[in-house]
Structure formats: structure tokens, C-alpha cells
């Protein structure tokens, strides 16, 4: 047996704990059954609801907390270095922690999955099989994301000279999701890409069209969740490799970006055409660039090594040291260029105004990444994330106010809004140069810039 899994079982799934959990879950289902004996249908519905609640509480909340804590508790208990020195392979360490730390949570959650599946089958529902499978995939996805977030938190904290804490990681995860959701659903960001169609994922009724394929929504939801769970596991494994000091070519992250771009593009494609699908892919890559800029440790030593490797043209080392935001930025630019090239050939759009705005969006994205780098590489990196968010909010607020005062022409100087051709692009490019010049000063000589 995987030693890490076994150790977690010793700690988490001791017979006494299992017995107490069995009693608690049994009481919940028993009380539900007693309270809904008027008709078999009512009983099935009530039990399905109880099963879903048990699953949500145990598989999604308790399991996610346990998966994240599997690493953070080791840090807090000062046992992490001992584990990093073990002979366990990264994958064994990843799944041993993931399933082991959440083993009791999984046992309880699986009763919920079973009850939901049986209840749906009893009611003759067609999704009696896909829904339980979706629940399992969803729990895996959430737990793997939490473990990956914890590993990201550990690396960030180490670079910032502090200890990673579960509250900090959970807070960062939540704020990150809210920010990305806010940007993704903003009108300016979605312009022309039709990203709102991602909402289809959250409802499993009817059918979903994806790259021209029409698939039952419940099946699509299951497959998509399973695919993202697999990517989340791959991400956690990759981060675990880094924690164990193992280096390698960065394959998983770019591969995930390509998958994500294709996934998002597929949802847009049937209605809006290929250029819009490519733009949708570019937009989700741009979002990933923001996520990467905040998630990666503010490690100026690593950046210096990257710069040195580029200068020496030792590309293998440069690839290993490359900041994570570079890949999504390049992919976003590439997909945007491809979208306009496709549109020009297929005469899909009136290209020019869209092109200016897309180029403006990219310029502002690069400026924003510079602002993030400027704050995160400052003398007090612990406050870098907050400072970056605040500055970006102020910059866009200024754009909104000026836009309100002078119309889109003024606002286009501070945000990628429609306006005279080149306004947003020119302003964004100038601001990007300034932001990156300031960031570069800090990365090269933090003490000097702090004193200044």
C-alpha cells in the first residue's frame, strides 16, 4: 500500500472515527426516512435530497478542507521537510494525501452518492447513472483544486518569507474565483467572444453543442467535470513535483491552456463561427495569465535565473524557469491573431474595429501583469496581492469615471473600450511600458527601489 495513503488512513479512518461517522450518517438518513413515509415518491425525493446534502457537506466541504489541509497541516506541524525527503514519487504523494486525508470524508460522501443514485433509479430518472458519477468527479475536482491551491500557497509563502496558512489559501482561492468570475462576466472582456455560453455547464437539462457535436447536457457535464478533475489532479501532481525539487519541461500548464482554449471555443463555435471560438480561447487564456500572475511565487531569484538563461540561450533551463504567465499571454496573442486572420479570410466580421479593441485588450492585459509584478516584487511581498488588486481597481475606476465624463473616447485611455481606432492600444501600450519599467527596477534591485 502507498505509505502516505496508509499513514493518512491510520490518522483519519481509525475504527472509532468510522463508527462515529456511520452513526451520524445513519441518523441523518433514518430521520429523513421517518419524516417522509407518506408516499414512496416523497421518500425517494427526500432521501435524494438528504444524500445530496451529505455529499455536499462531506465530499465538497469537509473533503476539500481535508485535501488542502493534507499539505498545510504538514507545514504547520513541521513535518513537511521530512516528507519532502521521502522516497515517494510525486504521484504517490499526491494521491496518497488526496484520498488518504479525505478518506473518512469520502466514506461519508459516497453514502450520499449511493443514496442519490438509488433514489434517482427508483424514480426512473435517466440520469440515475450520470449524476452519481458527476458527483464523484465534482468532489475529485474540488479536492484536487484545493490541494493544488494549498501547494501554490506553500510556494508563495516560502518566497515571501512567511508560513502558509489554510485560512490564507482558502481566502486567496475564494478571492481569485470571484475576481476571475467578475472579469470573465464583464461586458468589455466578453465582447465578441460569447463566453456567457459557459453557463450551460451549470444546467444539465437539454443538450449542449460543442464544436458542432450535440451532446445531452448531463453527459456533457459529467465528461467536462471529469476532464477538469483530471487536469486538476495533473496540476496538483505537477506542483507536488516542484515541492519535491524535481524539475522538468513545463508541459502540463501549456497543455491545459490549449485544452481550456479548445473547450471554451467549442461552446461558442456553432453559433458565432470559428473566429469567435478562437477569440473565446484567447480570452480564457488571458484570464489564466492573470491567475498565474497572482498564483506564482514572487521569486526574483528565479526570475534572474530565467533572464540569465535567456541571455545565455540555454533554452531548456529558460523553459524550466519561465514565469507561468508567459504561456497564456503568448497563447492569447496567438489565438487573437489567428482569429483575425480567420475572420479576414472568411469575411466573418467587419474586422477593423474589433481588431483595434482586441489589440487594446491585450495591451491592457500586459499592463495589468506589469502592475501585478510591480506590487508583488515590492519590499513587502506579503501585501503585494492586495496592492495589485487595489491599484488595478483604481485604474479601471478612473477609466470608468473618465468614460462617464467624456464618453468612450476618454474612457478608452484607461480601459480597453470602443473608441477612436488605436486609443486603447496606444494608451495601453504606453502604460504597459511604464508598468514593466517600474516592475523591472524592483525585480533587479528591490532595496534600491524600496529606498527610492
Amino acid at each position, binding site marked *: 500500500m502507498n505509505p502516505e495513503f496508509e499513514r493518512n488512513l491510520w*490518522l483519519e479512518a481509525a475504527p472509532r472515527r468510522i463508527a462515529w461517522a456511520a452513526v451520524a450518517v445513519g441518523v441523518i438518513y433514518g430521520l429523513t426516512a421517518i419524516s417522509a413515509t407518506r408516499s414512496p415518491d416523497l421518500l425517494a425525493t427526500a432521501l435524494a435530497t438528504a444524500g445530496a446534502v451529505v455529499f455536499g457537506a462531506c465530499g465538497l466541504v469537509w473533503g476539500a478542507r481535508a485535501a488542502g489541509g493534507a499539505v498545510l497541516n504538514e507545514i504547520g*506541524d513541521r513535518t513537511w521537510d521530512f516528507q519532502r*525527503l*521521502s*522516497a*515517494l514519487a510525486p504521484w504517490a504523494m499526491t494521491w496518497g494525501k488526496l484520498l488518504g486525508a479525505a478518506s473518512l470524508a469520502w466514506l461519508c460522501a459516497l453514502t450520499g452518492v449511493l443514496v442519490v443514485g438509488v433514489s434517482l433509479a427508483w424514480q426512473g430518472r435517466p440520469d440515475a447513472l450520470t449524476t452519481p458519477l458527476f458527483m464523484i468527479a465534482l468532489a475529485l475536482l474540488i479536492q484536487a483544486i484545493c490541494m493544488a491551491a494549498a501547494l501554490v500557497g506553500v510556494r508563495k509563502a516560502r518566497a515571501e518569507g512567511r508560513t502558509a496558512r489554510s485560512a490564507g489559501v482558502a481566502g486567496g482561492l475564494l478571492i481569485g474565483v470571484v475576481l476571475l468570475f467578475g472579469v470573465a462576466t464583464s461586458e468589455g472582456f466578453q465582447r465578441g467572444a460569447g463566453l456567457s455560453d459557459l453557463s450551460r455547464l451549470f444546467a444539465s437539462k437539454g443538450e449542449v453543442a460543442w464544436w458542432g457535436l450535440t451532446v445531452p447536457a448531463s453527459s456533457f457535464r459529467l465528461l467536462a467535470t471529469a476532464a477538469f478533475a483530471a487536469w486538476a489532479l495533473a496540476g496538483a501532481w505537477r506542483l507536488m513535483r516542484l515541492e*519535491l*525539487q524535481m524539475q522538468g519541461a513545463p508541459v502540463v500548464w501549456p497543455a491545459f491552456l490549449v485544452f481550456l482554449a479548445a473547450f471554451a471555443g467549442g461552446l461558442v463555435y456553432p453559433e458565432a463561427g470559428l473566429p469567435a471560438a478562437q477569440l473565446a480561447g484567447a480570452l480564457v487564456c488571458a484570464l489564466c495569465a492573470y491567475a498565474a500572475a497572482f498564483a506564482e511565487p514572487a521569486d526574483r531569484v528565479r526570475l534572474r535565473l530565467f533572464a540569465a538563461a535567456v541571455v545565455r540561450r540555454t533554452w531548456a533551463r529558460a523553459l524550466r524557469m519561465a514565469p507561468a504567465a508567459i504561456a497564456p499571454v503568448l497563447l492569447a496573442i496567438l489565438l487573437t491573431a489567428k482569429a483575425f486572420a480567420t475572420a479576414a479570410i472568411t469575411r466573418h466580421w467587419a474586422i477593423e474595429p474589433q481588431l483595434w479593441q482586441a489589440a487594446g485588450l491585450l495591451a491592457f492585459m500586459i499592463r495589468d501583469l506589469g502592475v501585478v509584478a510591480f506590487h508583488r516584487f515590492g519590499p513587502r511581498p506579503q501585501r503585494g496581492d492586495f496592492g495589485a488588486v487595489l491599484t488595478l481597481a483604481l485604474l479601471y475606476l478612473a477609466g470608468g469615471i473618465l468614460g462617464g465624463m467624456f464618453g468612450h473616447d476618454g474612457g478608452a485611455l484607461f480601459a480597453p473600450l470602443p473608441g477612436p481606432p488605436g486609443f486603447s492600444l496606444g494608451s495601453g501600450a504606453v502604460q504597459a511600458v511604464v508598468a514593466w519599467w517600474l516592475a523591472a527596477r524592483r525585480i533587479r534591485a*528591490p*532595496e534600491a527601489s524600496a529606498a527610492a
Partner: protein
Amino acid sequence: MIDVRDVVYDYPTLRALHGVSCTVEAGAVLALVGPNGAGKSTLMRCIAALDAPTEGTITVAGLDTQADPRAVHAALGYLPDFFGLYDELSIRRSLTYAARSRGVADAVVAEAVDLAAARVQLSDRLDQRAGELSRGLRQRLAIAQTIVHRPRVLLLDEPAAGLDPEARRSLSDLILKLAADGMTIVVSSHILAELEDYSTRMLMIRDGRVAGGGVVAAGGGARDEARVRATFADPPADLEARLVALGVAVERRTGDAVVIALAPGEDAAALLARLVKADLRICAYEPVTRTLEDAYMAQAPR
């Protein structure tokens, strides 16, 4: 066994190691000494392949820490200055997990657990929970976890911190036993007396740089051929003046004992004869043994 070449380590706003180089021979017990904040722990973590140096290379048992960190992890045991244990696990389960996670074959895990427990004198407590152990016993368990896979190199960072005198004595005995088994051991501390009993070599780190002459002999009870300690019975009030009049170089006096530096080429026996002839009553006369502190102080000003 350990070869450190031009190692530089940068924290985000601070250079912790400035081109450190040293070599530790197989079987040596190296005292890594220096003031707090000198870079000892950083160097140890780099040797343990837990942190990658910004520049330079480190090989442990012929394995490059950056090219093959996992093989280095398998070849060594490392006990950090602040360590934790799985408080809810028994000593047996803690050691079983340590052995299995360090790649000990399943067939010999039980044997490895028993051996490690015996080495740290925990055999009679195998079913006790780690959380119930005293500070000294926790230290022993941590060391047992570190050596359960029989590493070739053992790195101990401030291992005696917080231990009572009895526990320190047990730790010294254990390190001597492990060294006798052929293990190469690096022990860091800023308290030299801790290292006195077992160190054969010494490396001083100061401000992130190797101070003194690199890895040097630690002292460890070796005779100092240039000095003797004479203890006088009823020493006269003008003892030091009389010694100076005899042309004897007094290095220091502690109570009735005086440390005398021999003149170049002077024989200790001849000096003794001169002292007796001068009617000075001597009750003890012995060559001075070099302590680790002597070695440290000799290197410090360089």
C-alpha cells in the same frame, strides 16, 4: 562524500551564502559552526537538496543535488532545527511510516524499525504515542526516523537545542555510534561544547562565507604540542613574576593552574625540570588538549 563548490544562495532580498566551498570526507563528523544567522542552516538545506542554490554545485555521495535531488534525498537523513512528529501515531507506526516512505523494502521494514528504535533506546516504548514523549525522547524518535533507512550521510541541525544534560550525553553517544558505523555526519550548532565530544572536523561559517581555513581538524582531545598546563601546590604570591623571570611564557592562569606556551624547540620535560629546580612545587603537569573552542578561536580571526 560531500562536495560543495562555489555555492551562492539568495533569499529574495538577501544573499545568505557567498561562494561557499568545502569537502567532507567519508566517515567524518563535521562540526558546522558559526554565529546565529551565519548561513549554517541554509547550507544544510542546500546539501539536503531541499533548496536549490542560486549558483554553484553540491554533490552528496557522488549525486548532484540539482540534477538528481530525489536520489540525494534517499542517500541522506536530515533533521532540521525545528522538527515535528505525528503526535497521534505510536512510535512503531511513526518508524514504520518513515521506513516505508524512505524506500525500505516491505520485507525488512519491521527489522529496520526495531534496529532504529534500539539505536535511540526507544525499544521499550514502541507502542507509546509520539505526543506523549518528553522533549528528549521526541528528539530521539526524530533521529530514529531520520536514520531508519540507514543513510550514508546524516545532517543534524542544532540537534541538542533544548535538551537536558542527560539527553545531550545520549545524543553524543548515539552520534559516536553512528560515526563508528561509517556514517558521514554533519552537525551544526553555535554552542561549541555540544560538538566537543564527537566532531573530527570543523567548518566555520561567518556571514555566509567560509571563515578560517575551510574544513580543519576539530580538536577533539588532540594534544597541543606547543602548550602545557602546570598545577602548583601552594603557589607563591609572585608565581607569575617568578615564571617570567625563568623565561617562561604564561598564556593564562586559572586558580593554581597555569597554561604555559613552550618556546620553539623546547621540550616539555626540560621545562618541568627547570620549574622543579626553581623550587616551585608542582602537583600536576600535562600537555594541553585542543578543544573545539581552541580550534574555533584559532580560525576566527583569519
